[in-house]
């Protein structure tokens, strides 16, 4: 059973796109939130969530099971996924 994967991204960000591409290529199921496309109200709520995971609140913030990975770090992502 795959551990839950959730990513916080920006629709305009290339590192975020690379992250989605890698997960797609590895056939990993994931949830994503493009934070820049949210309403201001939704954005505030989500930013608080991101800040708890990654105090710098940068994108992508990647949650794989209990691991939080900041930025498109392919080695760390693959390791956390057990690939």
């Amino acid at each position: 059973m795959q551990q839950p994967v959730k990513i916080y991204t920006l629709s305009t960000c290339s590192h975020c796109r690379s992250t989605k591409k890698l997960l797609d290529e590895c056939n990993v199921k994931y949830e994503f939130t493009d934070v820049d496309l949210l309403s201001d109200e939704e954005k505030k709520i989500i930013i608080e969530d991101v800040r708890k995971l990654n105090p710098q609140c940068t994108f992508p913030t990647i949650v794989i099971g209990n691991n939080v990975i900041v930025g498109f770090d392919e080695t760390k992502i693959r390791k956390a996924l057990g690939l």
Partner: protein
Amino acid sequence: MEVNELYEMLRKMQEPKGYFFSRDKDWVLEILRGLLTNKERYSYMSCPCRLASRDREKDKDIICPCVYRAPDVKEYGSCYCNLYVSKEWNDDKIPHVYVPERRSSEKNPII
């Protein structure tokens, strides 16, 4: 403005200052499309790799080229987005490390 037009315009402006586009042109064009999206959305070319506040004054440090480009290219050979890089970075003479966010967390992001 069309993305190729922006590419040529910025290249001519930035290369003489020692800032080169990454040699990965697809990557560069994606970022430039992000800049054009942000220009339409916020009316200024905010960094597409960071969340803008919609307030030009608050975002002035992340209007591309951001104020962090110079120290990031100096230290890592690349800006945060891997858009502007040094000649050495493009020639693989220095390692391509993930550039950490230099902007302070109090500023990032202000909504």
